[in-house]
């Protein structure tokens, strides 16, 4: 065979080249020819690879070493050879590879290619030694290569490091347990599964331990949150197959990925280079994670991955915000100018001429008839079956040139406009039927677009009422016959008197309480996150809704109600919107006050804040906090039992306490079971809220004075916090006022 002889000749020439003194360039040319030959016919690989080995060894000139290393990398990776052929070649080249790798200060290109070749060789060598354990020599070579590579790794230049990462990945792939999901080519399927437990040379546990160590070393670049984009990308882009097919590595890899922040660089100044870096890291990370999500949606970490990806996309959108917008605008411009690829054959719109309607009455059908063809005009479209008509319409609309459609629509609109103008002229002669007093509430006069106003201006009942009062429907019948298209107006709503208005606004207010029963309880988990900068109602849960309601109550009409409006409201017998919501919040809290005490506190905080704003503005508008707080305490005080510690909490948390408010607690002391609750609540205030300490102590003192039964406990607190008070109270009873002063002095 001619080719066969060529191959032999090439191999021979290659071999001869080493011996003779021909130039490097000539040698390269011959090697190139040999390479071409194996690419054309893979059966020559064995012979040619073995033939070139002596020429490309560690002592060869650099160009030959580079060529050789790249040729070995290519040959060991080629998909055209079977595993058996690869084993054959691999065992033959290990010695040369080792030589190239161990050369002192070897060229990076040679190293990069040699390590890539070693990465392809590793699984093959492992497979070989699994089945041929007697052949220890090749495994020793491979092990030496491995330790040499792992030794070079750290100090190597970037391209060499790249290959080291990939080599490590192949070692991990080969030395961990597989789930059998990988494709069976390129040695990807060689795994720990293939090693028998009693293999004389290989100890699976040891190999797996080594793999674990190497994986950690690979992931180090992520754990350090490295900004070396090249290495991070290279690492991430070779982790996929490990995660998918080596279950033992999956968790470790995913955890490293989810803790990795690809946008870290965004904090540094944004140069064009960092832009490329950030974009690369972000997209590479996201591609990897979405790749896993798509292939393994059942993964227990899927939820976390999803969250991470979403967060990443949001952050990226923020960082590249302006860029995104620019692009969008450019796209709009394209949309406006049309797609050049789908240019129309016709220059413009097909010439459709639509005759204007003549004078005189027209049928509705005539208004919409756009054709001049008499035959078509007389066609009765109602004879077409409805479903067929539907199909035809959809097809036609889909295929129709939008410009023709626009033309037709505007023609019909023009006809209607002219009809309207004629109708309006006729209608002007007739008296206006509507009640003049309600005119301001009516729809706009200039309603010449034939666009029915879809905003419901009144409710059904009102419309029905109106219709009852309307004259009989002759004009409508006329219109049907003559098509004198007058302006259509919804009857204006009746005037609303203040009582009705109040009722309606209360009904509206009560509706905002509707969602409370159906909304979810806010998740307790989220609470700690809410810092001072949180938004009050950023999620649609019950808490947020409640915040909304309390603000509506306190702030919606703030500044609108002046001192006089309060009186006016009473005159009418209604309350302002704010007050009616307040009333409903109050009722809502009291419905289940033990559980809704938080709502009460939140509400009172809002009231207090609003009062502060009112005071500052000096508008003299009414203040609400004190009134609401008193009313609330009155509301639940009757139901308090000895176990209701919420009282203590309530008093501790509301923003302001007054003597009057605390005075309410005295009522609790009439009941011996709640004495302790009242007094411990006060004691708590004394201890924990120094600003109100005096008021609280005053209240305790009053309790002591007024309630005989409460004295023992009250006395205990007074002795500690207001020493001398009891003495001052008891002695005047004995008729001596002077020592009281002394005691006061001591007290201060």
């Amino acid at each position: 065979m001619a080719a066969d002889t060529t191959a032999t000749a090439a191999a021979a020439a290659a071999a001869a080249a080493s011996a003779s003194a021909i130039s490097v360039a000539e040698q390269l040319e011959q090697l190139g020819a040999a390479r071409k030959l194996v690419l054309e016919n893979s059966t020559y690989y064995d012979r040619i690879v073995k033939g070139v080995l002596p020429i490309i060894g560690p002592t060869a000139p650099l160009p030959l070493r580079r060529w050789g290393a790249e040729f070995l990398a290519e040959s060991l990776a080629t998909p055209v050879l079977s595993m058996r052929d690869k084993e054959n070649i691999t065992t033959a080249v290990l010695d040369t590879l080792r030589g190239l790798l161990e050369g002192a200060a070897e060229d990076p290109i040679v190293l990069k290619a040699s390590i890539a070749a070693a990465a392809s060789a590793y699984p093959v060598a492992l497979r070989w030694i699994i089945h041929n354990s007697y052949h220890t020599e090749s495994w020793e070579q491979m092990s030496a290569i491995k330790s040499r590579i792992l030794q070079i790794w750290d100090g190597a230049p970037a391209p060499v490091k790249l290959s080291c990462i990939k080599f490590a990945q192949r070692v991990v792939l080969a030395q961990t347990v597989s789930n059998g999901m990988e494709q069976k080519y390129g040695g990807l399927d060689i795994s720990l599964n293939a090693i028998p437990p009693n293999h004389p040379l290989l100890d699976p546990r040891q190999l797996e331990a080594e793999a674990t160590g190497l994986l950690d070393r690979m992931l180090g670049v992520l754990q350090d949150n490295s900004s070396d984009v090249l290495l991070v990308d290279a690492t991430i882009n070779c982790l996929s197959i490990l995660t998918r097919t080596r279950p033992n590595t999956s968790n470790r890899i995913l955890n490293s990925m989810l803790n990795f922040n690809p946008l870290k660089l965004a904090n540094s100044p944004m140069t064009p280079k960092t832009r490329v870096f950030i974009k690369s890291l972000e997209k590479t990370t996201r591609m990897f994670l979405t790749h896993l999500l798509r292939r393994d949606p059942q993964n227990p970490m899927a939820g976390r991955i999803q969250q991470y990806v979403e967060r990443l996309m949001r952050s990226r959108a923020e960082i590249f915000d302006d860029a995104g917008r620019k692009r969008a605008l450019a796209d709009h411009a394209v949309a406006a100018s049309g797609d050049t690829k789908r240019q129309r054959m016709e220059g413009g719109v097909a010439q459709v001429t639509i005759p204007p309607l003549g004078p005189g009455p027209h049928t509705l059908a005539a208004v919409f008839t756009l054709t001049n063809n008499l035959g078509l005009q007389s066609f009765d479209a109602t004879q077409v079956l409805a479903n067929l008509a539907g199909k035809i319409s959809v097809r036609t609309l889909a295929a129709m040139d939008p410009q023709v459609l626009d033309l037709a629509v505007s023609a019909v609109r023009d006809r209607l406009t002219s009809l309207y103008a004629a109708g309006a002229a006729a209608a002007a002669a007739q008296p206006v039927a509507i009640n003049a007093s309600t005119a301001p509430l009516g729809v706009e006069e200039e309603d010449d677009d034939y666009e029915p106003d879809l905003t419901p201006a009144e409710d059904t009942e009102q419309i029905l009422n109106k219709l009852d009062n309307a004259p009989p429907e002759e004009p409508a019948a006329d219109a049907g016959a003559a098509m004198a298209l007058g302006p259509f107006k919804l009857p204006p709503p009746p005037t609303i008197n203040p009582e009705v208005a109040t009722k309606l606004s209360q009904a509206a207010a009560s509706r905002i309480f509707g969602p409370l029963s159906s909304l979810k309880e806010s998740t307790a988990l989220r609470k700690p996150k809410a810092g001072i900068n949180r938004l009050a109602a950023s999620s649609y849960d019950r808490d947020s809704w409640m915040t909304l309601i309390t603000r509506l109550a306190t702030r919606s009409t703030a500044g609108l109600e002046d001192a006089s409006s309060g009186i006016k409201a009473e005159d009418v017998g209604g309350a302002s919107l704010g007050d009616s919501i307040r009333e409903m919040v109050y009722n809502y809290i009291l419905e289940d006050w033990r559980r809704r005490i938080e709502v009460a506190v939140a509400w009172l905080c809002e009231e207090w804040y609003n009062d502060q704003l009112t005071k500052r503005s000096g508008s003299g508008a009414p203040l609400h906090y004190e009134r609401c707080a008193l009313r609330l305490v009155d509301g639940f005080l009757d139901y308090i039992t000895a176990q209701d510690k919420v009282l203590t909490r309530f008093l501790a948390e509301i923003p302001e306490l007054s003597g009057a408010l605390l005075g309410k607690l005295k009522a609790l002391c009439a009941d011996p079971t709640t004495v302790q609750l009242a007094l411990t609540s006060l004691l708590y205030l004394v201890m924990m809220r120094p600003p109100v300490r005096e008021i609280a102590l005053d209240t305790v003192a009053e309790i002591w004075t007024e309630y005989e039964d409460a004295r023992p406990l009250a006395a205990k607190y007074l002795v500690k916090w207001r020493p001398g008070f009891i003495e001052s109270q008891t002695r005047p009873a004995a008729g001596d006022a002077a020592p009281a002063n002394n005691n006061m002095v001591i007290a201060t």
Partner: protein
Amino acid sequence: MDASNGSAGSAAAQNGQAGDGSGFRLKFCTVCASNQNRSMEGHLRLAQANYPVISFGTGSLVRLPGPTITQPNVYKFNETSYDSIFRELDAKDPRLYRANGLLNMLERNRRIKWGPERWQDWQVGLPRVKHEKDQGSVGMEAGIPDIVITCEERCWDAVVDDLLNRGAPLNRPVHVINIDIKDNHKDALTAGGAMVELADSLNKAALQERDKVGASAFEAGGVAGRASFDERVPEVLAEWQERWPDLPATWTLSWF
């Protein structure tokens, strides 16, 4: 290294591995959705600039505009030649397809290579010795490019995802670069020039790396001035992006 060099014109410049450095050419691969417009324009321009180049589409089918937007002309990848598509459209409605540029495009494409190829069906590393008539085939015999340039973000996504899926059996690094090009003739033409410019910049960086010899390069690893080709790819891209701000680019390093 290959005998057909002379026939391809411009001396030995395109020889993948001949000589040490001076004749070095990076190998490219262009990718768009249908392997018709953007990737083929890139293919042509890179081939004319003497770069070894191949091209692919990532779509499920080759889609070309038809008489309306809902009636595209659809063909199978790898099984339909540009020539047969040309002849079919020419028979259907020569006026339409001449006017919207499809026939001109196919005319160009059928001179470049046989037919549209699908990225996902491509076996990386399978020798492409049977493609001698393709433009840009010289130097591409091993079928492994150094740089993949996609013409649209979703093509880049498809390529990166596909490479993750393949599991990197060849242990060979590849730079995957996306350039966002709008899918029309005019933009494809502009971007073709931009692509050649990028290729020249990248090739220059690669040549500089290959000119550095031995120990000095090793010891200087990581120093910016003598940074390796792989490290310089994103930098070169950033500089290129400054010159071509209307063609947003993305890059990653992946594996075959």
